[in-house]
């Protein structure tokens, strides 16, 4: 059954006109800022393309062949999947844990915690990444001081990706907390009262009531997180520049390097289109798995 608001009849010609204008505006906006760039990128992937010197030489499938045979590309794709999966997992787990803790009646000064958790999310990414660069510094960095270690977090291949993940999770978990907290506040309390009457334990209430009720919100956070993490490059740019060697290359950083360091926009376009397809497929799969795509 469709919501009543959608099936409400139009009231006047002016309302029809206004709606048409708004819809047209959105279509034009979408076409100019989303659809055309995607088409341009796809076309550009068949060229040796450098808009900075007005160069566009047809290459056929060369960029695509190069991409498929590039060891760096596949490493970047692997790193991107790993990065997105781990960051999303911790974002959700931390978000669930802290939102449930904040929802508890035992916690006081909830607003303070909400603000504290959300502050990293609204701080400028570049600025905090530079701060974390100092935190990760060997010998004098805060993290090593706290742990009593001398790990070169950003230049040791074993830890460099972990360092980027730590920053990302710290920066982003607050968003999940707020989103999931919103989901918790909108849950039907009568279900919980019934469950308590039936003798359900706290874990059972969480497992069989809270999680299913939060599923649409979790799915939303998962999808937006994956889309966001597939496009991550700023922490890499500031912290490691893809290093040591190529250990922390992510797909978006590779695209950035090809486009804005080597001015190889054609190859960068091929990479971008692959990334676009990966995100599209992943989003589709997420909807499929949830089976409730339209609830979002």
């Amino acid at each position, binding site marked *: 059954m469709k919501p009543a608001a959608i099936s409400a009849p139009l009231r006047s010609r002016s309302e029809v006109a206004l709606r048409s204008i708004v819809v047209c505006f959105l279509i034009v906006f979408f076409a100019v800022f989303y659809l055309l760039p995607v088409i341009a990128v796809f076309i550009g992937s068949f060229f*040796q393309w450098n808009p900075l010197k007005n160069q566009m030489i047809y290459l056929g499938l060369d960029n695509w062949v*190069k991409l498929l045979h590039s060891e760096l590309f596949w490493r970047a794709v692997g790193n991107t999947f790993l990065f997105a999966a781990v960051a999303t997992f911790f974002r959700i787990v931390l978000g669930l844990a802290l939102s449930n803790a904040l929802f508890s009646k035992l916690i006081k000064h909830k607003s303070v915690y909400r603000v504290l958790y959300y502050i990293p999310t609204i701080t400028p990414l570049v600025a905090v990444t530079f701060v974390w660069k100092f935190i990760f510094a060997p*010998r004098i960095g805060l993290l090593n001081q706290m742990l009593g270690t001398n790990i*070169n977090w950003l*230049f040791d291949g074993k830890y460099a990706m972990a360092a980027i993940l730590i920053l990302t999770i710290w920066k982003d978990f607050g968003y999940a907390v707020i989103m999931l907290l919103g989901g918790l506040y909108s849950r039907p309390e009568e279900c919980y009262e019934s469950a308590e009457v039936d003798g359900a334990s706290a874990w059972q209430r969480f497992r069989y009531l809270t999680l299913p009720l939060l599923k649409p919100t979790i799915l939303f956070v998962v999808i937006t997180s994956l889309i966001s993490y597939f496009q991550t490059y700023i922490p890499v740019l500031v912290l490691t520049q893809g*290093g040591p*060697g190529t250990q922390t290359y992510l797909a978006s950083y590779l695209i950035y390097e090809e486009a*804005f*360091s*080597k001015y190889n926009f054609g190859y960068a376009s091929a990479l971008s289109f692959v990334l676009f397809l990966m995100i599209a497929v992943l989003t589709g799969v997420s909807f499929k798995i949830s089976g409730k795509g339209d609830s979002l």
Partner: protein
Amino acid sequence: MKVKNHGLFILTLAIMSGLTACGAAPADTPEQSAQSGQTEPDGETQSQPADVNESAEAALPIMGDVIQYDPNQPVNDGNDIDIEFWYWTGAANLFQSLADQYQAVHPNVHITLVENPYDDYWTKLPLALQGTDGPAIFNVHNSQHDNLIGYLAPYDIPAEDLEAEFVGASGHEIDGKIYYTDYGLMTATMYYNVDMWEAAGLTEADIPKTWDEFREVAKKLTIRDENGHLVQAGFSYNGGIQGDVLGMQYQYGQNLFTEDNKVTLNNDAMKSVIQRLQDMYHIDGVCDYNFGNNSGDNFGQGTVAMYLGWGFMTNVLEQNFPETHFACFEIPTPTADVPYAYHRYNGESTFGVNKNAPADQQTVAQDIIRFFLANDEIQKEFCLANAVFPAKTSLQNDNDLLAIPSISVLADHIDRYIWPGTIPSTVEDNVKIMLEDVFYNGKDITAALSDAEQTINEDLANLDFTSQEPMYKYASEALQ
């Protein structure tokens, strides 16, 4: 109006005295001005400011030797004109000074300085140059040669004149024309902390000439605590030495590029360079890879005794670490013999003129270029500000410039520094990856060099790059 004229008069006199102080100005006196075809003041008294101002302007001496600038010639027929001059951040005072000095001579020219962040500059500028309303004149970095050359108008100064006065100008010649050249040459020198040097009992006589001597000195400058933990590194290259590695192979006579403009990294010279760097850490123990991630900053902070840095490091140290007492010596070489080249240099470029700008703006831009190139005082100002060795031959013995340690150590052998050309970014990017793979990921040197060489040459195949190594004065001495 009268007040304005008085101000202009004082400003003009100030510029005159500045220009007169410049040793290269050939027409210092009215007599000399007359010899060079300048109009003498017409005898009007200096008690009439407005008229005297015109007289004083007419008496401005011609600047320069081979490339000359006559400040008495009107620009744009004396009509008002506005032009934009773009540059990247970090040198606002320098460009303001240039604009002020030029506008003082030509008050009808109104220069609007437009500053952009460095990274944004290289996307905004080429796009702006595609239209007709881009900047008439702009700062150039030769690493962006490929993107910019299509928008540049050639200088209206004959190439032979530029080559007569500016070292390395011939390397910028394209079909007999020069679109920009270098006003300063920057390269790497070894910075050392004088206090640490003295504390280790070292003297001037210990300044190393060879890498073997250098390693011994570095060991003496290294301090560890009772647990063996590094307290003071004798020498550090943490955080990136790719720019220097790309110059060190020349010391063995090995060029960086082949005759067909492909890069050559997987060779004995480069292997020796990297092996030596690695041995300094692993065998000599003068530093380790966890001892900070920015050896330049660590040098300034006083935890590193020696650091291989480019000329700009002089200003970085003076501005950010004023308490660090440092000096410089020339980069060591494999043997005591004079090498094929001590290192590579890169030029600080002169400005570009936008060929798509309106003709009148281009004319003014060309005039500013000539003003800049002929004027030794401004040349010196730019070289001092960037701590670069002057490309202009008339300044190469200038005492003020030679007082800068990173410049003075180059003076004896500046002709033994090679310019490979405008090296595309893929070279340095992939050498950085290669070095990190070797130093941090334990990759075999030969395999790392081979991979880097292959990747770079794949990228170079799509670029219009020509090595300038054959133009080097001693090119015939290179390994074949």
